[in-house]
């Protein structure tokens, strides 16, 4: 099932991107596929949402970019996690845990 996460919770796309970069630096397409993978196929991020998010996060200083060679020796733009990004990941993870606990709790009640 494909759905757009960005319209729902803006923060979650950022969280997913940061998480997928923990494994190592990746280009845009790779990040997109990785998110698909780690969410068990639930979330498919269109380039129209991915690229703005990547560029915004780069401006925020959580990821940095550089041009490198992809498989097949093509030039592609790669992204890597920065120190600030790692910290942000921890923050977001905690926040997400809190939110999901709160909602789960609310649904269990009454």
């Amino acid at each position, binding site marked *: 099932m494909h759905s757009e996460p960005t319209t729902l919770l803006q923060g979650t796309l950022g969280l997913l991107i940061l998480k997928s970069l923990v494994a190592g630096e990746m*280009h845009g397409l790779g990040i997109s596929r990785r998110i698909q993978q780690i969410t068990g196929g639930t979330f498919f991020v269109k380039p*129209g949402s991915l*690229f*703005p998010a990547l560029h915004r996060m780069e401006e*925020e200083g959580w990821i940095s970019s550089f041009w490198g060679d992809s498989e097949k020796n093509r*030039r592609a733009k790669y992204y890597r996690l920065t120190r600030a990004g790692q910290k942000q990941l921890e923050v977001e993870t905690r926040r997400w845990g809190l939110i999901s606990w709160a909602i789960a709790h609310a649904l269990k009640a009454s």
Partner: protein
Amino acid sequence: MSLILKVHSFLRNLFLSSRIEVDLDQEVRSHLEMLTEENIRAGMPLQEAQRAARIELGGIEQVKEQVREERVGTWLHSVISDYRYGIRQLRKNPTFTAVALLTLALGIGATTAIFTLVEAVLLRSLPVSNPAQLYRLGKDPDCCVRLGFSRSGDYAIVSNELYEYFRANTKDFEELAAFQAGGTFLGVRHARTANPAETYFGEFVSGNYFSMFGLNANAGRTLSVADDTPAAPPAAFMSYRLWKQIYGLDPSVIGSVFNINDKPFTLVGIAPPDFYGDTLSNVPPDFYLPLATEPFVKGESSLLNKSSAGWLNVIGRIRPGTNVASTEAQLRVELQQWLRSHWGEMSANERLELPKQTLNLGPGGAGITTMRQQYSDWLHILMLVASFVLLIVCANVANLLLMRGMQRRQQTSLRIALGARPTRLVRQALTESILLSLMGGAVGLVVAYLGTRMILHLAFDTTTQLPISAAPSLPVLLFAFAVSLITGIIFGIGPAWLATRVDPIEALRGANRSTRDSGSLPRKALVIFQAALSVVLLSASGLLLQTLRNLQHENFGFDRNHRTVINIDPVLAGYKPAQLPSLYSGIHDSLAALPGVASVAFALYSPMSGDGWSETIYVEGKPEPAPDVDAGSGWTRVSSGFFDTIGNPILRGRPIDDHDSNRSRHVAVINETFARKFFKNEDPIGKYFGKAMGSADDYEIVGVARDARYADFDFTKPPGAFFFLSQSQSSEYSDPNAASTELRSHFLHDIVVRTQPRATLSDEQMRRALASVAPNLPVGRIQSLDQQVENNFSQQKLIAQLTSLFGALALVLASIGIYGITSYNVARRTNEIGVRMALGADRMAVVRLVLRGAFLQVVLGLVLGIPLAIAGGRLLGSQLYQISGWDPAAPAIAVGLLALSAFLASLIPAHRAVSLDPSRSLRSE
């Protein structure tokens, strides 16, 4: 996100934008390639792989656009690109841009010109320090001399003694200053020169006047408290304007001696360049003299030491943090205390009125606001009129933009089909409109400058030195900018929004062949709106022009033709009362000897000269008038032969003539209204009256003159009661006020010269005749009586002329609008016309078709405009004279003019329609 990072990104996006763009483009393309490869690896053929990749990507440009929007500072980037796009568009259509710019410049310029005047007269404060702290005595401006302890309104003009009482007892004021209400003309001669005295305007001020205003001298020193004592050597202070104009900023003038009214004064300093005194007027003072020198200069007509003679205005600087209401209350108490201290000198009436005497404290930052009161009404009307013109201009430019929007429909729908967002297109169109209007505003500033100069020239005598500059000040610039911006938004937003309401399919369908007029409604509405406004303006100008004509041709009770008025001031040359009779007879004989002179007479002031004296009348044998009853009359003093010279007919009895001398019984001539007011149902001839209490038998009435408008300027009211006394006769009074008035009234100010119908007499001849008998008598203005009367209508003239100008402008703009839409319709319906003609319609039918379209809008405009015009006529009410706001002639003429212009405007398109070749028009796409 840290601020530093944000700023860094912002700047990077701003300055490295091209590099970032290239980068982004490469990134998105490489993504697309990788997607394609992925698909190939999954087994898709090349074409299929590429297509699937493109679908997944969603479009290169779209993705790039979405990234751009996320960027920090993206709004600025798009604003800049919108601006660049707008400039490009405007340059591509130079005719359109030029026409729009010109009409905008006219509209914005006209509005800004009026605002320049509004700001200078209605809004500005005096050029002094901290005007907000200044407070003045008197709710409304009052001028100039008020004798006695009672006031009919509030105490706005006070005597010197009362001023000093206030100053000593009111601690709330840091400084309380007083200055002569209305100023005075002075005869000034620089001691070093041999030239005769020149007349200049001046004002007596208290010693702390300049320190109260917080002003320093531009050169030398200001008048100080030390100068304002009886023992101090007489000091004078000069305006910068005079120092520059006459003495060329010569520093040696400071410290030299000037003879003012033949009394020596030392000039101690020069005022700052932009200081024009305490009153905005067209005669700013050139000399400031200390109050203490008033008796020295004025001699027997001095008012300084008369405790009940009010002749001073009072303005003070209040201590910061003071509650003004409590200061006002305190001043009121002080007034009562001071009045009570003069109980013994008061008349019975004044004692009765004492408890009612009050005063008001009002903001004084703008000084004495006489001009504000006078011009407020017509400035508001002009502002309204100018806004109408601006609205019409907006409608015109909006129409132009709509037309262009229609032309670009294909292009716009293509852009939308390609993914441009409508809001972005609206923003671009709006940016273009604002650019257009800002440029129009810049050119409009030039129009405003020229327009203001023209208005100032028309409204005020060229001989005056009104301290209003046509050059735009900061508030004016801000106003022009704001108006331009708002104008741009008003005329831009409609067309911008409408232009984007296109179906993208249209782009693909090609030029439409329908005759249905989808986008014409707003354009038609605009033309109707313009037509309506034009009718209102033209109708208003018609009413005002007729008012002016009525005023100019009105018979005011005297004959305006072949009469010249010479303005003199014997006070300035230091004449004593005993010398006056021989002065006047000498001047009379000298002028009468000139060729072409039919008669010469003197008056204290001539009709409609701007001056006015009035007194309470005490009729012999009748009880004293009650305090709240109007028992006043205007009056003047005239020489023998005056009535004949001025052309005011005597209806009963005789005029003032040579029989009347100081040895014969004292006589008076009254006017019809005086007779009706004080001698209703009786014959006034032979009855007695007086102008001071206890002297009711002073004057015997010997004649009744026809009512003439002497000194009342409210044209909506009939002339008031008036009486004339002889220049040769003088009464004695025990009351010092009455005696002083009597004395001053013998210094006559106007010489009226009646010339033979075909004679020409030059000013030079008259001046020489005067100089031959009275060489040191300063001669002021010489003008025809006609001109003197006309000067009273300068406001009406100006407002009528300007409204007509604006009305004509509105008509031209509305006609252009009608022309535009009619020719557009013809162009659009070329096919239809071709078909009709091919089917046998004759030329007249085609012309009728075209004209019908144009006239439909005009008729609708009239339906809208006529009620508005009539409402406008009612609004003008107070400005009209002898013409009712309901007068149908004005709207009727306006309608006729509009119909005529509409007809002329439609002629060219009609001609074009008629000369269409049917076969060609059928072929056109």
